[in-house]
């Protein structure tokens, strides 16, 4: 009757008689009558595969995806190209139907993939050690804040206002409930205001969080910030776009103690916001403070190279309330996706993605600027996103663009009252000159 439940009625009877009871109801006699449901759940009746498919496809059809719409929206979720190989490998059931690799002898596939993923994250960030991944960029940033507090035994985190609003909101929640002070530093012309930052960073500051490229797409100069944090013996936490790291200086080169970020752009679909990939890497010195799973290399009894979950004494299943974090799972399939992506694109391909994105983004801003209607909101070096000041409401512009099957930019006024009527646009390698020209022409037509 149910394709996922193999036992027949005969099997049931046999099992019951073997156990020595009369009916299935007897198996639930330990549940007090007063709390039994004793009615049918108010849910749908069982549906056939055809019915399920029809039902869900009907819902899907109510959406308009980036297949239909040309996407100039970024703001933390990016429409980068996803090579075909990814879905063919990630849909191998040996990967996706496996549990956490607690039995290493039959989990070498997952374990080696994570080891390779960790190696690539270290390459990109320049850091010594990466964990096996976390829920997303925002929660990874919050975990980094905890790590800084634990390590410095301090209780205050300074955050630049140029950090993504979603990340800042998540941080606020995490820090508030843990009883850690959250201090925000204003921006100045789209970058962290260094003077204001210096004014709040003290020997009570556990860590400073900056994002680069920041929420506005601008590459932050962290030289002064780094000096200031380290003079006060705090930790520098950098949230970075992994794709940008093909071109830009790594967090390690800039003196970061912890590097985190959103890895969705490394081959994961937009997926309406998740599952994504939080990555996190740090220095050797802080290795044992890192939250989450970590895979290490070792050998088996025959001396064969093998991989295993290691440094587990940090984790909740051993350390319980004294663990570095409560996190148990990682985003293994997204980490696999990132490993395949970085392998497929390789050294040259990732650079090409970064170069094309930044070239096309600059082309787009230039074109918009030439209309005389749209002006750059800031005058700072940026990577693949930029903000423009508009003459009309962003919502209105976006509605017009949508009529022409274009997803316009992010309305900055929602999070930054000073920047109303400003739009954050994103151009990835997927966008063509033609699409950019269309965007500009349409925007020019909106008065």
């Amino acid at each position, binding site marked *: 009757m149910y394709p996922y439940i193999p036992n027949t009625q005969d099997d049931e009877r046999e099992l019951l008689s073997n156990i020595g009871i009369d009916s299935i109801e007897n198996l639930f006699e330990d549940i007090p009558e007063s709390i039994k449901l004793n009615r049918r759940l108010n849910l749908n009746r069982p549906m056939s595969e055809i019915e399920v498919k029809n039902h869900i496809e009907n819902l899907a059809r109510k959406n308009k995806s980036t297949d239909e719409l040309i996407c100039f929206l970024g703001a933390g979720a990016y429409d980068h190209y996803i090579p075909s190989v990814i879905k063919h490998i990630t849909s191998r059931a040996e990967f996706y139907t496996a549990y956490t690799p607690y039995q290493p002898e039959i989990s070498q596939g997952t374990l080696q993939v994570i080891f390779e993923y960790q190696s690539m994250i270290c390459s990109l960030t320049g850091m010594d050690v990466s964990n096996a991944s976390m829920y997303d960029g925002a929660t990874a940033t919050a975990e980094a804040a905890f790590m800084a507090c634990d390590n410095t035994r301090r209780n205050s985190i300074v955050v630049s206002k140029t950090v993504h609003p979603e990340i800042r909101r998540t941080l606020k929640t995490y820090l508030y409930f843990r009883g850690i002070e959250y201090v925000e530093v204003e921006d100045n012309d789209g970058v962290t205001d260094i003077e204001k930052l210096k004014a709040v960073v003290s020997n009570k500051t556990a860590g400073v969080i900056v994002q680069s490229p920041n929420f506005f797409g601008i590459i932050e100069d962290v030289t002064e910030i780094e000096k200031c944090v380290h003079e006060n013996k705090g930790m520098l936490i950098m949230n970075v776009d992994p794709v940008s790291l093909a071109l830009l200086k790594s967090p390690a080169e800039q003196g970061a103690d912890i590097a985190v970020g959103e890895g969705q752009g490394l081959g994961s679909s937009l997926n309406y916001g998740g599952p994504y990939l939080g990555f996190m890497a740090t220095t050797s010195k802080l290795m044992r403070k890192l939250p989450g799973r970590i895979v290490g290399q070792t050998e088996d009894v025959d001396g064969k190279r093998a991989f295993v979950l290691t440094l587990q*004494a940090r984790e909740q299943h*051993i350390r319980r309330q*004294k663990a570095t974090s409560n996190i148990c799972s990682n985003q293994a399939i997204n980490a696999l996706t990132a490993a395949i992506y970085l392998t497929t694109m390789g050294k040259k391909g990732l650079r090409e993605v970064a170069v094309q994105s930044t070239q096309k983004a600059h082309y787009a801003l230039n074109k918009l600027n030439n209309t005389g209607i749209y002006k750059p909101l800031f005058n700072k070096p940026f990577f693949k996103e930029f903000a423009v000041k508009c003459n009309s409401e962003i919502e209105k512009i976006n509605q017009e663009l949508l009529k022409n099957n274009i997803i316009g930019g992010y309305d900055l006024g929602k999070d930054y009252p000073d920047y109303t009527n400003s739009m954050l646009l994103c151009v990835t390698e997927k966008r063509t000159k033609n699409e950019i020209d269309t965007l500009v022409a349409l925007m020019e037509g909106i008065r």
Partner: protein
Amino acid sequence: MRILENLLYTNDHEWIRVEGNEAYIGITDYAQHALGDIVFVELPEVDAQFNAGDAFGVIESVKAAADIYIPVSARIIEVNEEISDDPSLVNKDAFENWMIKVELLDKSELDNLMTAKDYEEHCSKEE
């Protein structure tokens, strides 16, 4: 299981060897055996001060982790870097390989600790 006569012991399986106003502190043979292969020892900074019963460090094996508590109030004079570099030394000889050398802040607290004989009894109860 080895227990040395000339040391004092805690319920949590630390030992202390007093030398005048100073003392060496480590974990017992019983403790190293219970933990199994020790892979990591985290020790405090020199000059740090602790009250009796405070955790001053952490010791980890592959499948377990334990805080190490200071038997008496003390200030850290020296930490044994050798065991940080090679934690297996603790497995080899838990009494030879001390963890911290301290200055005692209140010698009267030593009276609260167990003698070798008491400790032996304590361990046999835990078995």
